[in-house]
């Protein structure tokens, strides 16, 4: 089991071998409210660390989804596009956004662990 890491943009990332699974945190879904639309990157496309890699929209507004690491998209979760409410229900597990083949594993080192993220989320939402 590899450790789950977190970004300041409220994404979580789990690296297994050289494939990382990325989604948005529960805290992010709570800030967004009911998610009603999700757009994901195309399979085979390359994304750069901290670049846009999708969009989620709540009833209130649209927000970009960023990728915390660079790589090539190898899979996307069509289920959340078909039913975006799944993101509110299970954001840190079955409602992952995309998987990518990581380009530079050292990029993982810049991310937060769970304790640091929880602290960060609490501070920034106050």
């Amino acid at each position, binding site marked *: 089991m590899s450790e789950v890491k977190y970004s300041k943009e409220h994404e979580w990332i789990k690296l297994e071998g050289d494939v990382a699974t990325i989604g948005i945190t529960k805290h992010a879904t709570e800030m967004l*409210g*009911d998610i*009603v*639309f999700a757009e994901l990157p195309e399979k085979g496309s390359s994304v750069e660390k901290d670049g846009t890699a999708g*969009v989620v*929209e709540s*009833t209130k*507004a*649209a927000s970009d989804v960023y990728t915390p690491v660079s790589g090539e998209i190898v899979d996307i979760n069509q289920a959340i596009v078909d039913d975006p409410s799944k993101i509110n229900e299970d954001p840190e597990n079955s409602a992952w956004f995309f998987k990518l083949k990581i380009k530079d594993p050292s990029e993982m080192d810049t991310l937060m662990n769970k304790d640091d993220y929880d602290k960060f989320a609490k501070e920034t939402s106050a």
Partner: protein
Amino acid sequence: METKKTSLYQLHKDCNAKFVEFAGYQMPIQYSEGIVEEHKFTRNHSGIFDVSHMGQLFIYGGEELIEDLEKVFPLDLKNLKLNHSKYSFLMDKDAGIQDDLIITKIKEGFLIILNAACKNNDFKILKEFLSEKYKMVLDEDRSLIAIQGPKSSQILNEVVDGVKDLNFMSGNWFSFENQKLYITRSGYTGEDGFEISILNSFADKFTRELIKKGSKLVGLGARDTLRLEAGLCLYGHDLDKDKTPVEANLKWAISKERISKGDFIGSDIIIKQLNDGVSKIRVGIKPEGRIIAREKTKIFNQLDVHIGEITSGTFGPSVNGPVAMGYVENEFSKKNTKVFLEVRGKKHAASICSLPFYKKSYVKGASQ
């Protein structure tokens, strides 16, 4: 300027409201269940909305006031029966909409419900126009509470006996704890419902009674998705000074009798537009797929020519898909016309559609 709080502020807090500043007021955008649940609860059951930020303008007067107000509003006020309401607008001389409103004939004169962001300016305009002939009160001592949805009639009637006998777009005085309430059967969600004008000091207790009977507080977020599904305009978005009632496709609200006389503010332009047509008009827009086109989204025709803009767009929980309205050049306003919406740099197919997106269930006849 400090933001104002309504009399229900503590109740909102008790119900875990998330607040947002709106027109100078701290207003609840949603509660713990979220916009989609609140929206659906209103459609299926009954939702309570704090709309105390809206203006309640009482103008006192008789026959002469009716004549004077007919010079302001494009309404046949002489034939407006006691306790009956009409939707209307305050226009400038070019027929630009300064506000949209509901005006009700009461025994002592008129009660006009105004948008929060416009109410002080409306008051100034009206006071000037009526040359201070009449007593006018923009009542800050009363709260305004709406209860909307199919179970609302039954729930409200348990708290205020007799309200279920009101007809749509009519009102009357009722009592709660020996306090006079003015209640109209109206609202802005596309559902059957009521708006209750009540003294601030009783608003909290009254609303808690409604909650006890099974209704729930609903925030401004769901109010927006509900009104948009119902095809109703939001001032400052779908309506503003650069748009006329004819362009806004609201000519049904203009009295034919008054057009024939043509003696109200903006009537020259209204008559000209009714005769010659308009170059842009408000339409319903249904995006294909799930893409949400929000306010200011550009609309293109099939030849990629820019033909208009979205003025309101969101996800409609009851429609279970995106909904929008906006203004397009008149020749592209026909139902089923294919258009394209530019969202995040990409063009997405949509079509012009009739409003509402969600069919209304107003009570028109006897009580239910």
